[in-house]
Structures are given as structure tokens and as C-alpha cells.
């Protein structure tokens, strides 16, 4: 089935540079400096590098797995684990990828409710975004890819704006360097996982890339871009806040935006948070496109109808999750599952595949 993709729906490998950050830089970036600091203090920027590099290794593994298996993840699962178990794992994977759209959208609507419109009902804004996502996803992969480009550009501009608060920084916050134990760094690196997820979407993108052999460097390049951006944000937050302040700030990024003043704009976050909508739109659309495509391949569903069902699920669950704790929990659980799926499962899959290959030859 994967072989029937028409040439006009495919994109050149260069766009992986945008597709990878387009999924990774979602909503996690608003709050992550605080979670990081909980574990390894102001040393935890190292954790960003650890997670970033390990994710690059995972991307490399994903490409190896796909190349060996002929580019079709459902087929790979079927060959490795048998028809039923393999199919079940594929199902879980698509379900998990689908959950991103919910996590991203719900967290973002929460941000809007807290920072801009306290009285806004969840359902109305979620409905607007669901319609928008439907409109984008039915236009196919090329349009969704185009959105990720704009997402990367906007997030880049938004992060560059953090140069603004630099006049208030205290570089000595970062010292002393390297005074935490390795286990602390690793736990801290694990909290960082949420920001680097979405690598598994490569399994579905892969047949849509024109020359998949040449795509690894762009995918890893995109991942490194995310790494650099996160490193910049986390360092900016650490030198801007004192440890005590950071503990009390839920979304360090927004509070830093509040500092920025332009001749005609006083509260920058009023502009930046709505503009961030473009970034989350890319994430939501990618997650929805990937999961609807996955279910279509797995069950031979109609993708449009699948998409409508998925959007209905996103919509109803968004309305159900109302409290801060519930949303926070949803984020944590997704990160946890993502950690096992990405950093444990993919290497295992790679190992099994390697052993089998040796066995057969």
C-alpha cells in the first residue's frame, strides 16, 4: 500500500529539517526549564544536550530499521512479531502518536485561558482549531509539511525575542558547573523527553520522502535545531531567574516575554501566545495526519472518516480534561509512554531486526 504514493504528494528530504522540529517544538517549551531545574538544578542544561544527542541516535536507528524493512513500519512489525502482536504494536504506536494532538491542543487552550481569555470556554476555541486542523489535514502531506515550515520560522522568531530580556541576566546563576550526580542528570534528561518526541512519526513520513536515503542528515539536522533552540531557552531562563523564582513560575517563557517592550507593544506575550498558535497547529496537524494515515494503512479505513472520528475524540477529551492537574498529568503520562516507546522500544526493535538478519544470512 505504501508504494502507491503519487509523486506529487511527496516532499524532498530537505523538508525533514522542518518536519522534525515542527513536531517537537510544541507546548512543552513553555514550562520545561522549571521541570528540568527540579532535578539537576541550574546544571540541568546538560540534560538538554544528553536528550538531544540520544534522540539523534534514535533517528539514525529509525532510518536503519526502515531501510532494512523496506520503509513500511506495519510490515516491519508484522515480520518481526507476527501478524497479531505486530499489528497490536502498530495500533498502540498510532494511538500514542494520536495522543500528541490532544496533549498539544489542550495545553495550548489552557495557556490561552490563563494568559489571555480567562472566561473563554474550552469547547469553542478547541472547535475552531479542530476545524482548522481538518481543513489542513484533508489537503494532504504537502500542506501539512508547509505548515511545519511556518511553525519553525515563527518559533525561531519567538525564541529570538528572548534576546530582549537579556539586560536583566545574572550569568553567575549557572555556576558552579557539574556539581550534580549522574543519576540526577539522567532523571532530568528524562523530563526533557517530552520536548523531543515525535521522532517516531518518521515511520510514517518515510515513504513520503523523495530520496529517503539522503534524508538522515536533514532529520538529524532538524533535531539539532531543536536542541539548539531548547538550549538557548533553558540557558536564558536560568540566567534570568534565580532558583527560588523559577520554582514559583509555571511558565518561565511567558514571564520573560512580559519583560519585552517595543515602542508600540507593551505586553509582548499578548502577541506571542496567539502567534504560537501556528506552531501548535503544525504539531496537531502532523499528529493527526500521521495517526489517521497509520490507521488507514493498518485497518484499510477511509482516511477522511478516520480523521473526523479522531477529531471528535480530541474535541470531547479536550472538554473533559478541565483542571490544571489533569492536564499536567496528561502531559507527564504522554512523556512517560514516549520515553519507553522511543528510547527503549526502538533500540530493542533494531536489535531484534539485526539478530534476525544475521540469523537468516
Amino acid at each position: 500500500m505504501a508504494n502507491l504514493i503519487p509523486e506529487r504528494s511527496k516532499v524532498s528530504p530537505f523538508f525533514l529539517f522542518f518536519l522534525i522540529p515542527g513536531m517537537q517544538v510544541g507546548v512543552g517549551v513553555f514550562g520545561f526549564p522549571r521541570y528540568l531545574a527540579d532535578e539537576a538544578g541550574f546544571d540541568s542544561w546538560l540534560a538538554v544536550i544528553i536528550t538531544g544527542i540520544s534522540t539523534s541516535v534514535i533517528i539514525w536507528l529509525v532510518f536503519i530499521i526502515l531501510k532494512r524493512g523496506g520503509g513500511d513500519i506495519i510490515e516491519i512489525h508484522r515480520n518481526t512479531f507476527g501478524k497479531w502482536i505486530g499489528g497490536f504494536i502498530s495500533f498502540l504506536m498510532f494511538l500514542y502518536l494520536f495522543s500528541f494532538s490532544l496533549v498539544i491542543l489542550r495545553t495550548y487552550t489552557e495557556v490561552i485561558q490563563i494568559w489571555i481569555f480567562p472566561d473563554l470556554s474550552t469547547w469553542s476555541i478547541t472547535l475552531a482549531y479542530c476545524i482548522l486542523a481538518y481543513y489542513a489535514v484533508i489537503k494532504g502531506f504537502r500542506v501539512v509539511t508547509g505548515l511545519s515550515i511556518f511553525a519553525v520560522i515563527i518559533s525561531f522568531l519567538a525564541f529570538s525575542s528572548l534576546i530582549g530580556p537579556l539586560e536583566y541576566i545574572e550569568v553567575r546563576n549557572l555556576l558552579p558547573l557539574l556539581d550534580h550526580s549522574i543519576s540526577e542528570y539522567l532523571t532530568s534528561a528524562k523530563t526533557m523527553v517530552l520536548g523531543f518526541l515525535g521522532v517516531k512519526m518518521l515511520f510514517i513520513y518515510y515513504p513520503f520522502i523523495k530520496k529517503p536515503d539522503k534524508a538522515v542528515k536533514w532529520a538529524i539536522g532538524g533535531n539539532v535545531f531543536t536542541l539548539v533552540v531548547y538550549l538557548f531557552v533553558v540557558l536564558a531562563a536560568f540566567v534570568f531567574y534565580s532558583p527560588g523564582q523559577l520554582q514559583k513560575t509555571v511558565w518561565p517563557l511567558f514571564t520573560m516575554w512580559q519583560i519585552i517592550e517595543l515602542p508600540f507593544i507593551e505586553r509582548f506575550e499578548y502577541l506571542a501566545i496567539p502567534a504560537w498558535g501556528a506552531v501548535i497547529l503544525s504539531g496537531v496537524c502532523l499528529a493527526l495526519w500521521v495517526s489517521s494515515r497509520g490507521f488507514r494503512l493498518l485497518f484499510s479505513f477511509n482516511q477522511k472518516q478516520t480523521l473526523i472520528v479522531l477529531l471528535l475524540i480530541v474535541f470531547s477529551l479536550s472538554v473533559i480534561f478541565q483542571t490544571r492537574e489533569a492536564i499536567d498529568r496528561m502531559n507527564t503520562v504522554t512523556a512517560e509512554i514516549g520515553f519507553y516507546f522511543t528510547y527503549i522500544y526502538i533500540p530493542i526493535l533494531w536489535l531484534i531486526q539485526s539478530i534476525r538478519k544475521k540469523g537468516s544470512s
Partner: protein
Amino acid sequence: MKPDNFNHSPVTLTSLLETLKASRDFHLQAFTIAGKPFNLFYYSSLTDQTVFKKELLPCLRKAENSSLKEITEAIPFIEALIVKDVKKVEEKLLTGFLGLNLQGGTDECLLIPVKEQKHRDVTVPEVEFSVIGPKEGFIEDIDTNIYLIRKRLPVKNLINSEIEVGSLSKTRVAVLYLDGIADEENVNTIKQRVEDIEFDHIDDSSYINQLIEDNSKSPFPQLLDTERPDRTAASLTEGKVAVLVDGSPTAIIGPTTFLEFFSAFDDYFSNWIISSILRVIRVFSVAFSIFATAIYVAVLTYHTPLIPRDLLDTLVQSRDAIPFPPIIEAVFLELTIELLREAGARLPSKVGQTIGIVGGIVIGTAAVEAGLTSNVLLIIVALSALASFTTPIYRIGNTIRLLRFPFLFAAQLWGLVGIFIGIGFLLVHLLGLTSLGRPYLEPLYPLRLQDMKDSVIRLPFSRQSQRPVHMRPDNPKRFNKQQARKTRDIDD
């Protein structure tokens, strides 16, 4: 006339002439050539009476032989032809031919072209006026238009393939392209789409434009329309395909991109630095035109902390006595401006100008003095109306003015969040659009750096040695860069 009779055509010449005689301007008269009685028939409204009387009649009188073939040789009309098919005779008579047939003989006719050629002179293009550069504009006559293009491109590669469209209007549609430069796929797409048109009456190229564009549900024009022969010729050299329609003073050019609608042909007449800056100004003015009022509504309705206190003071003071919320105020003013524009377009040009100025100034001042709108908003609305007219292609200006209203309502609904959701819809829509199957947002998406040389900016001609990749030209090289002037070192 009953519908089933409509397509029925007479089988014999006599019955055809009987049918045609129902019209007052159809003339059927007996005429003697070399002693034999002939029927002479034509539409007086379609034929040129001067040519007929001065050139054709004397020759016919002088003719010595009465066979049609010999008459043909005796008259000074190369395109004259002898036809037996009655259907063909009917067709030709209706395009300005004169028929000659031996009384009591067969249906065989001699058809002589004495077409009336009435059209206005080539004049200055009115919509795409340019201060410097050529001042020719297309006119309603397709042959003149083709001449205007051929004069600029005297090469054999300029191919003109004509297609007849419209079951009633039988309009001549010419698809022009440069063979060996234009991509065959583009040419075939456009030809195929023109051939597939099912419509009875084609009045203007905009009919064809709407019938062949990729997505007719989009407010964005997906094919460029121009009334400048120079622009058409330049587009042909880039590998684009042009469509001319008889009876229409505008040509259609495709494939095109969104950014091309912001490039005036003047840009190529002035220095590249100046024209690049002008293009950037145009893009900004369009963005301003779409978003300015929406942002005003969003800020004053929801996000008052967004703007600095001093600016807010000015805004609040100007709105002090106004009894409406910002959205009512904005919609009221926007509609007034649209009304002025529409009235200005419909009124005769001399009256229109006066009404425009009087209406604009008087209504604007009075509305502010009466306390119905704030003067700040008046400035914004007037500026954004003005800004929408900076687009060199008329049709996209309309699209932009129309886009303002959804953004206004989105701003009222959710403030800036609403505006950005609107931008999301716009972006998705534009990303999905194509022009003849080529992406509309190129070179932004798909990102093609080499095509940036002539997009928002225009680099000097020395940098334009390659044709746009977007057209997939068969021959990508415009000129040889090595043979062009070399850069000199100091003191050479």
C-alpha cells in the same frame, strides 16, 4: 424556437438560404457573371461594404468564365474557397464570408472573405498603467493582440494554437507559448482545460480564466491576467503559457505564483534596488490592508494592555464620545469605503471622481464630527483601502479587500487569537492552492532559493541568467553568464 430545433441545420443550400433570409441584414440577390445567373448572398452587417463594392464587384463583372474555379482565380482574394458542405457554408457566412452559387446548379459555393474589421485602436493600458516604458495595451481584436506579441518575439518558436470555445459564441481562443522553452506539461494542461470547456458564451478572457483555474472555490486568482503585451511577451520568455481570447483586452498567463501578483511590470523598467524596495512596500501594504482594522478591533475590544499607555490614551480619547463598540464602528467605516469604491467604479468616470473625493472627505469628516467613528479608525480604514490598491493586478486587490471582513469578525470573536486562527486558515488555503498544478506559494513553499531572484525582491538582470525553476522550462538558460560582461578588478 424549440430547443430540439436549435441544433438542427438545413441539408440543402436552398433551405439554408430560406432560413437565413429571416434576418433583415442577410442579403440574397441575383447576379450575372459571364452571362450566367448566380446567387450572391452575405450578411451586410458582417461584411465590409467598401471592399465588396470597390474591389470585389468590378472583378466579378469583368470575369469571363462562369465556372467557380475560374472566378476564384480572377478575384484578388487569396482566402477564397470552394465548398460543398452546407454546414461549412453556414459557418463561413456567419464569420463574414460572401457566398456565390450558380442558380439551379449544385450546392457548390464560392466563399469570398470580405470581413468587416472594426475595432478600436491600440491604446494605453488603463488598469496596469506604467509611468515609464511601453504604452501599448491589448484591444478586443485577437489578431491585433497576437500581432502585438509577435512583434516583440519574432521567432519561429512562438507557437499559436487556436481552439474554438463556446457553443454559441464560437470564440477564438489562442494558446501561445515558446516551443522549446515552455514546459510541455504546462502547455498540454492549459490546452486540455480549454478544450474541455463546456459553455455557450465566452465574453471575455475572465470567463476562460474562471473556467480553467485549478480551484474555483478560492477567492484568489490562480492565473495572472494582464492587458500589457510587453508583460505577456516577457512571461512567454520565462516559459509561461499565455491565452488570448477574441473580444477580450486581457491575456491570461499561467502558471503563476502568489507573489507574482505583487510585481508590476514597471519593476523591470527601473533600477533593481528601487523596484525591490517597491515590491517589499507592496507586500507590507497588503498585509496592512488585511490586518490593520482587525488588529484595531482586537486591541480595543480585548487586549488594551498590549499597547503602551501613551498610545492607548490617544486611542481612548478619540473613542471617547463614540456610542458603539469598536466592531460596529469598524464595519460601518469599512462598508462606507467599499460603497464609495463600488459607486466610483459604476459611475461615469468624470462624475465618479468628484463623488469619490466629495464623498470621501465629506462623509469622513462628518462621521467623525458627529461622533460616529473615531478619527484614528478613519485614518486606518482609509489607509488600508488605499493600500489594497497598490497591487498591480486588479483582481487580487478585490480579494484582499474581501479578506478583511472575515478577519474583522474573527478579531471580534477571539481577539488576536481569532486573527491568528484566521491566518491559519489563510495559510492552509494558500498552501493547498495550485496554478496549473504548480504550487501557488512558490518560492516560499516549496522553498526554492534560486527563484527568489525575482519574487519579493528583484535582482539585477545580470543575476537573472536562469529561467524560473517553477515553470520547469525545457531550456533553463536565458543567456550565457560567461559571455555576459565580466566584473572588473580595481583600476582595470
